[in-house]
C-alpha cells in the first residue's frame, strides 16, 4: 500500500508540474492545476519548508566585508518579512569562530566566582527551573555600520538586516543567580560561550538581575545552532554581542574583564581619538520596510508604507513618516502588540502621485528619545565609530518607482 501511494503521489507531482508550465495565466476561468489534482500527504515533509517559490527569501552576506564566512555576519531579509517575529531559518547570524554543533547531552553551564554555591547544570537541570517566554529583538550594534560615511549599500537587507526578533523561552538569569547565591562583593558577570572563540563579555550585575534570560527555545522550538543551540544568554535591548551563544559559563566578579570583544571591538572611536566602551544600549531606531530598494513601487496609486521600530529603552511610543525628506511628518499607526524591547510594526497609507519622493521614518520611544538623522549623529560621533548607527533611513523614490538608499545633507 505504501509503495503504491508513493508511486501515485510521485506521478501526480510530475503531472502537476508539467500542467503548471502549460497553464500559465489560464486561471481563472479555468481551474488551476493544483485545483484538479491530489496534493502531497501529511508527513511528506516531516519538518516543513517554505514554498519553493520563496527560494530567494534567504539570509545573505556581503562577501567583501570579512576575510571569510566563519567570523562574519549574515543579514535577515527584512524586505520579505511580515509581522514582528523572524522565522528561525531567517534569523541573522553572527559568528566569531563559525557555527559549532554542540551536543546537548554533553553541554553544561557552570556558574562560579563570587557565589556562595558554585553550580554545574546540565540541559536537563536547566529546563527544570521555572520558565518564562518573552518576545525580544536582537540587533548587532554594527547594523548600518557601513553607512557612517555615506550611502553605500542599496538594500534594506544589507543596511538593516543585522536585526531579528523572536519569542525566547528559558529561565531568568536572576533565578539562577539566586540559586547560587550572589556574594555581596560581586558587581559584574563574565559570560562565556562554548564556541571556538570562547566568546566572552562582562555584564553589570544589575542588568543580569533585571531582565536577562538564559534561553533554550526560540519561537517554540529548540534554539537553532545558528542562535546558540542548546543554550544562549538573552540580554534584552542591549547590543547583540552580549547575548552570548552556546553559553557555558557565568563567573561573577568585582570588576569588569575588559575582554577583547569589549575593548578592541564593540567600542566606538570618536573624532577626538577617544573611544566609548560599554555602550551596550540599542538606541531607538526605525526603518521603512516597504517600499525599499528590493521592493519598489509599481505605478502611482494608494500604497501602505510599512515599517519596523524598536528601542532598547523599552517600548516604542510613536513613529512619524515623511515623504518629503523630513520637511513635514505624519504620525503612523502602530500595530499591536507593542512590547518592550521588541520589534513594533507601523504603517501609513500613502497616495503616491508618481513624482520623486524622499521617504523617512522617525521613532520616539517611551523615554521621549527621538531618532536622530545621520547628520546629527556625525556631528557628535564622526564617521569612524562603526557601531550604534541608529540614524533615520532615507529612501529615494524615483518617478519610475525604483527606490534607492540615499543620505541627505
Amino acid at each position, binding site marked *: 500500500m505504501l509503495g503504491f501511494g508513493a508511486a501515485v503521489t510521485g506521478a501526480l507531482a510530475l503531472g502537476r508540474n508539467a500542467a503548471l508550465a502549460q497553464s500559465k495565466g489560464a486561471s481563472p476561468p479555468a481551474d488551476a492545476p493544483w485545483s484538479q489534482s491530489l496534493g502531497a500527504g501529511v508527513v511528506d515533509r516531516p519538518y516543513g519548508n517554505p514554498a519553493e517559490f520563496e527560494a530567494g527569501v534567504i539570509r545573505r552576506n556581503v562577501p567583501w566585508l570579512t*576575510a571569510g564566512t566563519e567570523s562574519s555576519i549574515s543579514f535577515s531579509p527584512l524586505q520579505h518579512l511580515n509581522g514582528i517575529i523572524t522565522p528561525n531559518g531567517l534569523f541573522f547570524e553572527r559568528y566569531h569562530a563559525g557555527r559549532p554543533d554542540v551536543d546537548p547531552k554533553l553541554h553544561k553551564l*557552570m556558574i562560579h566566582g563570587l557565589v556562595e554555591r558554585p*553550580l554545574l547544570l546540565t540541559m536537563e537541570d536547566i529546563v527544570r527551573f521555572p520558565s518564562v517566554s518573552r518576545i525580544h529583538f536582537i540587533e548587532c550594534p554594527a547594523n548600518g555600520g557601513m553607512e557612517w560615511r555615506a550611502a553605500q549599500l542599496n538594500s534594506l537587507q544589507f543596511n538593516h538586516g543585522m536585526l531579528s526578533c523572536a519569542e525566547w523561552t528559558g529561565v531568568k538569569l536572576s533565578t539562577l543567580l539566586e540559586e547560587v547565591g550572589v556574594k555581596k562583593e560581586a558587581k559584574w558577570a563574565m559570560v562565556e560561550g562554548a564556541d*571556538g572563540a570562547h566568546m*566572552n563579555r562582562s555584564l553589570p550585575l544589575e542588568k543580569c538581575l533585571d531582565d536577562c534570560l538564559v534561553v533554550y527555545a526560540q519561537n517554540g522550538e529548540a534554539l537553532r545552532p545558528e542562535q546558540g543551540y542548546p543554550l544562549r544568554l538573552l540580554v534584552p535591548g542591549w547590543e547583540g554581542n552580549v547575548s552570548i551563544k552556546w553559553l557555558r559559563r557565568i*563567573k561573577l566578579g568585582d570588576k569588569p574583564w575588559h575582554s577583547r570583544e569589549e575593548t578592541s571591538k564593540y567600542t566606538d572611536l570618536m573624532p577626538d581619538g577617544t573611544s566609548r566602551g560599554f555602550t551596550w544600549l540599542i538606541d531607538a531606531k526605525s526603518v521603512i520596510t516597504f517600499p525599499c530598494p528590493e521592493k519598489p513601487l509599481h505605478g502611482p496609486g494608494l500604497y501602505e508604507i510599512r515599517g519596523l521600530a524598536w528601542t532598547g529603552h523599552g517600548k516604542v511610543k510613536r513613529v512619524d513618516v515623511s515623504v518629503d525628506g523630513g520637511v513635514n511628518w505624519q504620525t503612523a499607526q502602530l500595530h499591536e502588540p507593542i512590547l518592550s524591547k521588541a520589534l513594533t510594526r507601523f504603517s501609513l497609507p500613502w497616495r503616491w502621485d508618481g513624482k520623486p519622493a524622499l521617504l523617512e521614518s522617525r521613532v520616539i520611544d517611551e523615554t521621549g*528619545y527621538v531618532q536622530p538623522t545621520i547628520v*546629527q549623529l556625525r556631528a557628535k560621533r564622526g564617521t569612524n565609530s562603526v557601531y*550604534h548607527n541608529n540614524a533615520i533611513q532615507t529612501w529615494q523614490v524615483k518617478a519610475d518607482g525604483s527606490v534607492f538608499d540615499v543620505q541627505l545633507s
Partner: protein
Amino acid sequence: MSSFREMSSLRRSIGSVMAGASPAMARNERSVSRLKMAAVAIVLSGLSVTTAFAAEPGHFGYGTVPTAEQIAGWDIDARGEDGAGLPPGKGDVAAGEKVFAQQCAVCHGTFGEGEGRFPKLAGGQGTLKDDRPELTIGSYWPFAPTLWDYINRAMPMPTPHTLSADDVYALTAYILNLNNIVPNEFVADRDSLPKVRMPNRDNFIWTDPRPDTAAQPCMSACRDPATVTISSTAEGRDLTPRTTGPLDAMQPK
C-alpha cells in the same frame, strides 16, 4: 513531563508557605530566612560565612557542585586591567617569533601586517584621529593581559585554545614587541603583563554618554525644502551584492 510535575509541586509548596505571594517573593523571603539562620549559626559556632553557605543546597537543588578540577578546566579568563586569572608560565620575544611564524603568520603576516583581509596586529599608532584610522593592538588595545586572554581563548582560528600557556605568553611578548611597546628582552608572565602600559590605555571612556543627540519631533515645515539635497547615494556604487537568486560571491573591485 517530569519537569512539569516538578513545577507543579513547587507551586504547591510555595503556595502553602506563602499564600498570595509571588514565587519570586517567596524565594526572596526564604533567602532572607536562610541568611538569618546562617548568621545565628556563625554566632553560635564561630563558623565562617563561606563554610556555612557552601554546605547548604540552593532552593531548587538541581545540578551538581563542580569539582575544583572541573572549574580549573573552564576557568580560563584573565582580566584586562589587573591580569587576575593569568596562569603560571612565561615566554619571551624570541620564542614568540618562532611560534608566530608557525601558528599565526599565515593570516596575520610575518610582522603582523595582516594577509588579505585578516587583521593587522601592528602599527597604526597615532592614527586614531585620522580620516582612516588603523586600529591595531599597538594603536588601540588598552590592556596587555587581554591580549594573552584573547590569544589563549580564540586563537589560532582553526584550532583555538590548543596552545600552551608558555606559547601564549611568548606570542604576547612578540606582538607587543612588534608594536614597539616592550623591548627585545621582554619576558611575558603573570607579573609583567599587567605592568605593561598600552599606548591607548587612557583614551577609553567606560561610561556611556548617550543620549548624545537631542533631535526634536517637529511635525511641519521642519526645514527649508530648498536645503533638502541628496549628499550621497548608493545608486551606481557597485558595492551591493544581489538580493535575488542565489548567494552572491561579490569581492572588492
